[in-house]
């Protein structure tokens, strides 16, 4: 990756993309406020790690002062898309989005990284994708060494692009959607919902998925798990491959719009954000698709949000769960779809739970989708700060609302020799319903 592609080259490739970026970039007044909150700047301490630096590099490319080089690519990759900069910015600059546009420019100009190309080609082929991840589940015991006690295993065979020391959860031997009929009936349902499982829950954290199903059942809600659903597309979108993201989005929008329901739920902040925010933006040139995406967005809810605001979950059947619980807010929950109150309301409704707030609950844990795959060391440093915050609460459980965060935090806890467990909020609620049923 040494040959240089100049601004002129990309200019001829995608005028519109550049024009957009140019105006949005000009709005950054370079005040540096984003330095305070950028987790990567905190670790790296260099200007091109913080939003201000990355945006100015993009300006430099547009002005033709610096080339679209491998260094530029590396700088754009140094971002966990935690949105902290955008939330802090006095000028309302959506730096996280713009950095994705920077990655898009790279993708346009020089093509995707070969490993990513393979992964994304697989992603776009749903049956093959499903098949591969099922195989990973079947052969899971072969490729992962189990660690005692936890939903955690250490990769024994290196995965493409994955650090060998990294502790992940094993792939499920049977994916969630294969464990259940497509529709799970209840007597006289008060609501009918479609459950978008997302990949993490379908293929790895089936325990979260089962808890979601149990909780919905306990609230007399009928659930359908559309069998043709596919990855939400966030990981490809974040890598700058917007064309692939569109393919996945269109697929999901079609499937979920065609199946009748009252609401759509997801149990992951990023998946919910994809449906609620990204999809309606992905089809700017297609009025019909935009309309469809907007309709779907309006009825999509993150599970805690749904249970508290819409379903008004049944608190009479809750049993005791004796635990001190702290809460990590995933970036895409806190700053993406802005849901932080509802998960806390659920935790605090559980009899026996002592809730202990940590210092900065919405600080990124460092997972950042595929960021932690490519930058394991850095993501661990960010994670260590999270783990220290968790430790200072004296909690025995860290609740969160995202599978990737759960995996990354579990990794951090184990690497730091800690014994806390990391669970999805809904798993604790499920435990409480089960205790109440006894």
């Amino acid at each position, binding site marked *: 990756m040494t040959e240089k592609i100049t601004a002129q080259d990309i200019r001829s490739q995608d005028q519109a993309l550049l024009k957009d970026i140019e105006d949005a970039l000009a*709005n950054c007044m370079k005040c*540096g406020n984003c*330095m305070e909150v950028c987790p990567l700047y905190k670790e790296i301490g260099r*200007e*091109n790690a913080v939003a201000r630096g990355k945006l100015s*590099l993009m300006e*430099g490319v547009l002005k033709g002062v610096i080339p679209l*080089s491998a*260094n530029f690519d590396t700088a754009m990759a140094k971002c966990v898309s935690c949105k902290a900069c955008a939330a802090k910015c006095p*000028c309302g600059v959506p730096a996280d989005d713009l950095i994705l546009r920077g990655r898009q420019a790279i993708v346009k100009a020089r093509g995707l990284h070969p490993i990513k190309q393979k992964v994304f080609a697989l992603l776009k082929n749903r049956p093959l994708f499903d098949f591969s991840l099922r195989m990973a589940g079947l052969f899971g015991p072969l490729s992962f060494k189990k660690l005692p006690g936890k939903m955690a295993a250490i990769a024994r065979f290196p995965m493409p692009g994955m650090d060998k020391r990294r502790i992940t959860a094993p792939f499920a031997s049977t994916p969630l959607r294969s464990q259940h009929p497509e529709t799970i009936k209840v007597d006289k349902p008060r609501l009918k919902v479609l459950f978008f499982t997302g990949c993490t829950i379908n293929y790895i954290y089936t325990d979260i998925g089962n808890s979601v199903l149990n909780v919905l059942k306990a609230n007399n809600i009928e659930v359908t798990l559309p069998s043709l659903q596919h990855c939400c597309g966030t990981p490809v979108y974040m890598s700058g491959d917007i064309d692939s993201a569109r393919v996945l989005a269109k697929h999901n929008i079609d499937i979920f719009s065609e199946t009748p329901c009252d609401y759509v739920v997801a149990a992951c902040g990023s998946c919910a954000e994809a449906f609620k925010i990204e999809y309606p933006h992905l089809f700017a040139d297609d009025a019909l698709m935009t309309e469809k995406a907007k309709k779907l967005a309006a009825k999509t809810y993150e599970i805690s949000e749904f249970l508290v605001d819409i379903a008004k979950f049944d608190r009479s059947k809750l049993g005791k769960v004796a635990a001190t619980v702290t809460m990590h807010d995933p970036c895409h929950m806190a700053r993406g779809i802005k849901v932080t109150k509802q998960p806390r309301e659920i935790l605090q409704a559980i009899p026996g739970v002592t809730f202990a707030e940590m210092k900065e609950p919405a600080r990124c844990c460092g997972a950042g989708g595929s960021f932690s795959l490519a930058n394991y060391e850095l993501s661990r440093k960010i994670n260590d700060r999270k783990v220290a915050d968790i430790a200072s609460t004296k909690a025995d459980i860290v609740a969160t609302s995202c599978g990737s965060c759960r995996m990354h935090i579990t990794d951090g806890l184990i690497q730091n020799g800690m014994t806390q467990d990391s669970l999805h909020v809904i798993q604790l609620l499920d435990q409480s319903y089960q205790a109440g049923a006894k």
Partner: protein
Amino acid sequence: MEKKLLDSLTAIVGKENVLTTQEDLYSYSYDATPGHAHMPDVVVMPANAEETGKILALANENRIPVYTRGSGTNLSAGCVPTKGGIVLLMTRLNKIIEIDLENLVAVAEPGVIVADLNKAVAAHGLIYPPDPGTVNTATLGGTIAENAGGLRGLKYGVSKHYVMGLDIVLASGDTMTTGGKNVKDVSGYDMTKLFTGAEGTLGVITKATVKLVPAPEAKKSMMAIFKDLDNAGKAVSGIIAAKIIPATLEIMDNATIRTVEDYAHVGLPLDAEAVLLIEVDGNPTVVEKEAAKVMEVLTANHADSVQIAKDDNERDKLWAARRAALPALAKLRPTTYVEDATVPRNQVPAFLRAVSQLAVKHQVTIGTFGHAGDGNMHPTIVCDIRDSKEMERVQKAMDEMFRTAIELGGTLSGEHGIGLGKLPWMQAQHGPVAMNAMKSIKRALDPNLILNPGKLIGEC
């Protein structure tokens, strides 16, 4: 830059602390000031005073310009490497060395973020008062070099009132110490004050001893809305005449009020000519008494409405308007100039009026807010630097604005410093003799003119 020099720099600080790629250089070509960007030849990140000294000695020998940098948040182009050369990044020197509770001082390295210093001393019931809007990102070294102030400047002053001693590396690479922990210290020229506010033109700060003060036990905030600007001005003088020195006494003009209301919907009347925001702090009983007195003065000067915050929550609500001032203005247009022309406080209404008139005259958008109590105004010009016609008008407006401030007996800067941004008016404020005296000091301490050349006092 020559390979031999780069090798020498690498030998001093190690390979990973010398940045030379085009992308890295571009990342240190600017600060928070619009319209001044220039690439350095190299970025060097020393770990301590010793390495800093070696870098300066090398630069001095080879006549290479050196631009010291903290977080690069200054608003006067202080960090921009206009002549190429070395950007000397001080952020690795980031240790709080000592918090001395018996002498109420802290000793810290220049790369410490000011808010981090405050967090560390808060545990002992103390504060380090300088609190620029960028307190969460600016470095101690950068704030001392800019003589930064902040919202509580009226009662607590600016950086120079707290710096007691400095370790300085001179242009030659030699190291010296000024001042120290003595509360009374009149030995020799006041070198500590000379280097404070020198904007990196006289030496590089590698350690600072700063005064800490007890954190106020109580605070009370009030907001008053005035339909008439002159009444607001009289209220400001009235408060001071009543012998009350609030920690904060802020004003927003009509342009700012309208912008803030449009953006944050905090309930400000659009036809108000001024909003005053006042906070008194200190001993709880005194605070109650002073707050009551301030309320009296506000009413006596025909405030159209006055609100007092009963608790922290209400205080936050009152402050929301002031906090929104810069963001709201900055969002209007791509380019934002935050100026800080300052006038004696009895001239604040005259200055505000003049600024709004010249905004109309030159067809530029200016919202003014600022520290009414100490006369430190922040006329904020929003525009689009890519529009050269508009920029000509902005330049004219700015020129008239600074000349007006000087005519009113004011100064070019209350806290942001001069850098390049306000250089054109230095002669007008200080006159040729004083300018020459300042240049003599520069030439004596930095004979090869390597430290931030061309800034603050211009070419020498």
